[in-house]
């Protein structure tokens, strides 16, 4: 379940320097998220779709993630058109009518959410976690935060397997999920046992690291190396972000 099938691949997107991908993702999502007109997220969405295409991500997986992210958007469509004040576009039903402003707002949010989704999918999800830890440090995130990120990720799989073993053991003993005090006590014991084992493991891991001379710094074997292609990619991404931002600014000026 906790896997990163998107982070591996020979595509041109996967070959770009992770630091540049992270910065490009930040710039593009920021411009899309702050937009007040729907043209800007549309531009970013197009860029995101192009990069998703270039990254040659598995389509089935992309479709599943897309559905999950758009569940919240669908929920907003059920509420927003009817709760936004404005001119009604449908006949009132029990005094409730969809408004033009509400539909426009829901459309804008749908575009923004999906623009950011495709940027994160193609630029962030394609970075393997260890490289992302390094990229975070390169853009100025504190060392301790990068350390926590790397080791949280490193032990996610280990702890998930441990949880799986405990859950299997519970099932083998005839545990069935239910809304009862007994079931809740079992869930609590399960969660507590996962925490206790994680705590004990952390002590052993830290002792082992001290034994090997850990002083709070990592010596990385593969540093980042940016080439001309990386620079061209970053400039292109930033150009799209600036263009989107400029488009939004002219729209905003026109309305104030």
């Amino acid at each position: 379940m906790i896997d990163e099938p998107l982070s591996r691949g020979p595509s041109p997107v996967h070959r770009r320097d992770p630091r540049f991908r992270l910065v490009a993702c930040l710039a593009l999502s920021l411009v899309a998220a702050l937009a007040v007109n729907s043209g800007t997220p549309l531009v970013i969405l197009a860029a995101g779709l192009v990069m998703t295409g270039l990254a040659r991500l598995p389509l089935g997986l992309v479709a599943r993630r897309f559905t999950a992210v758009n569940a919240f958007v669908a929920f907003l469509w059920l509420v927003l058109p009817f709760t936004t004040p404005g001119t009604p576009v449908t006949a009132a039903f029990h005094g409730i009518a969809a408004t033009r402003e509400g539909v426009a707002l829901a459309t804008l949010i749908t575009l923004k959410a999906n623009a950011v989704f495709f940027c994160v999918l193609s630029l962030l999800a394609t970075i393997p976690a260890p490289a992302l830890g390094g990229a975070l440090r390169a853009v100025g995130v504190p060392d301790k935060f990068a350390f926590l990120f790397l080791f949280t990720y490193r032990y996610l799989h280990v702890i998930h397997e441990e949880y799986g073993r405990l859950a299997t053991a519970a099932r083998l003993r005839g545990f069935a999920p239910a809304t009862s005090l007994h079931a809740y006590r079992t869930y609590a014991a399960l969660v507590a046992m996962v925490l206790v084992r994680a705590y004990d493991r952390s002590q052993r891991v830290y002792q082992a690291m001290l034994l090997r001379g850990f002083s709070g710094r990592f010596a990385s074997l593969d540093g980042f190396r940016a080439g001309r292609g990386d620079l061209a990619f970053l400039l292109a991404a930033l150009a799209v972000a600036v263009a989107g931002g400029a488009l939004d600014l002219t729209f905003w000026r026109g309305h104030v």
Partner: protein
Amino acid sequence: MHISEGVLSGPVLACGWALAAGGVALGLRRVDYDRLMTVAILSAAFFVASLVHVPIGPVSVHLILNGLLGAVLGLAAFPAVCIALLLQAMLFQFGGLVVLGVNTVDMALPAVVCALVFGPLLRAGGKARLVGAFCCGFLAVLGAGLLTALALALSGEAFLTTAKLILLAHVPIMCAEGVLTAMVVGFLAKVRPEMLASSGLAG
């Protein structure tokens, strides 16, 4: 409990980032390298525990456990939540980088406040601990729901109904989280009392 990307207004997003950065910086300062590994692996454990689905009547919900997170990690809950959300964006594309700040504050701030208020009860033992732990679990989820609703409401009056619906949907989860947190804290107090004692915000 996430707000997806593209919903919130600029000022709310900026506010979220400023508060989150402050909280994370404060949390990181309280954790020295001796405890960093413990915080990292416990964060992983909380991430896994939040994938556990628990039935409430006919529906099944996943746990949030931010109250328990605060009780065990104290101020380090801020970096832990921020990293968990970053991993969710990376692994599942739930939420993006821009709403990360707001979402971090939504979940971590109530957790830290609860730990601060009920910390003494948690270390007391007996009935007091049970009550304190229930309050941590219940109120941390309530606080997260309130902050989420607030972030939505501040972004525009159109979101007021959405905010109310989200809050309402979390009422059963609050009760379940309160009960579970009380039970887990009871378990930890018996098996590894030092896990609760070291949570102290002084830690």
